[in-house]
């Protein structure tokens, strides 16, 4: 059963066509990789799927329902978007990792946070580290686990390994693999050749549509 389905989705800002009409569907527990030249609209597809912007043409379905009919808050908790250059907020790592609890009005589970930090090779005392003192790789890892504290149904990854060193990239790959094995559907955009080589389900975004 398709978990996400794009039907003739296009996106235009004023006179500029950012994304041509495209259609494709993603099955439950699929791992889809979107590739294509820069500026073709790959990140736009993910932002549309995350309901951070709305298509100017066509529609997006989540479990056969048009996402405009769903509660945006519940939807975004189920379909979680991870930014290419994440903006961490507050002062410390903890400020970022307790945010998902705060918005759900749930008590913070400290051991869950330290487990997640461990999974991305960061020590437990990292929680109190100031975000201004983090490297690019550390920021991306913190941002990624921020999206995974409450496991989404679909994870949208927008070039999350771009600019990372090999060690950080490897850690992120392991975490994504583990998340996928837990049944999360993953849609990623990447330019990384090693990620493209290891992908099994690829959609190429082209000017005139898509190529599977």
């Amino acid at each position, binding site marked *: 059963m398709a978990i996400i389905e794009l039907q003739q989705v296009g996106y235009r800002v004023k006179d500029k066509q950012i994304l041509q009409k495209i259609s494709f569907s993603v099955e439950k527990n699929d791992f889809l990789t979107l590739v294509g030249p820069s500026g073709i609209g790959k990140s736009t597809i993910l932002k549309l799927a995350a309901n951070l912007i709305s298509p100017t043409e066509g529609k997006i379905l989540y479990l056969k329902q048009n996402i405009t009919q769903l509660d945006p808050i519940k939807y*975004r908790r189920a379909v979680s978007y991870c930014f290419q*250059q994440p*903006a961490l*907020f507050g002062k410390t790592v903890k400020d970022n990792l307790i945010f*998902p609890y705060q*918005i759900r009005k749930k008590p913070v589970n400290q051991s869950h946070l330290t487990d997640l930090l461990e999974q991305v090779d960061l020590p437990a005392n990292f929680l109190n580290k100031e975000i201004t003192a983090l490297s690019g790789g550390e920021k991306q890892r913190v941002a990624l686990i921020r999206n995974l504290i409450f496991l989404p149904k679909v994870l949208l990854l927008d070039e999350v390994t771009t600019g990372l060193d090999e060690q950080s990239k490897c850690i992120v790959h392991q975490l994504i693999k583990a998340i996928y094995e837990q049944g999360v559907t993953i849609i990623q955009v990447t330019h990384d050749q090693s990620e493209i080589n290891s992908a099994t389900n690829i959609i190429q975004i082209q000017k005139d549509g898509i190529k599977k």
Partner: protein
Amino acid sequence: MKNVVVSNWSLVLAFALVLVSVAISAKEKLGLTKDILVSVARAIVQLIIIGFILKFIFHVNALWLTLASTLIIIFNASWNAYERNPNPHRKLIDSIVAEAIGTYVTLGLLIISEVIKPIPMQVIPITGMIAGNEMVAVGLCYKALNNSFHDLREPVLERLALGSDIKMASMPILRRSIKTAMQPTIDSAKTVGLVNLPGMMSGLIFAGVNPVYAIKYQIMITFMLLSATGLGAVISGYLAYKNYFNKQMQLRD
């Protein structure tokens, strides 16, 4: 009262002060001469008209007329605050609600605590002071909201993407904007009496009131302005931030 009578001849002589500004504009080629003369002409005409209107209202001394006057003051202040809002999706009703609640709550407390009497001679000038200061605070809040939603767009999008509602996603921006709006009143309260002798206090001293009594009024004004600008900034901020989002809870461009 003898102290505060300005003769027409004195007023004409005081016009020389306007000529100082005109001369500066002409010498420095600022191109402000026309603006200065128009603004002075407007000020004179507006003040003459309002002087006669106030004289009439004070003479009639009717509650409905006093109330109508406060409504007009609040609407004008709301309109001006609304005009200062750079958001293309701004709503006039936000400014009206903020101005009306801030003004009437503050005014109500002053009347209940018998600081002022419910007579037009006291209610109308105090309403003007409250609404005017609130208008500045609300305008500042709008500008700060707009700048912050522009500068801090990414963190807001991150919070939305994590499944936050628009209020939680905007909270740091909202706090920053309310703080910016209240800061001038707080700063002014810190320096009152040291740097400036405000209008109310100066007016009473001019009229021959003992300065010790005059400061009591000024203390009341300080309390009043803190309350009014605080209420105005909080209410306008909590109403206006919503205009930066659409029905799908997406941050507008």
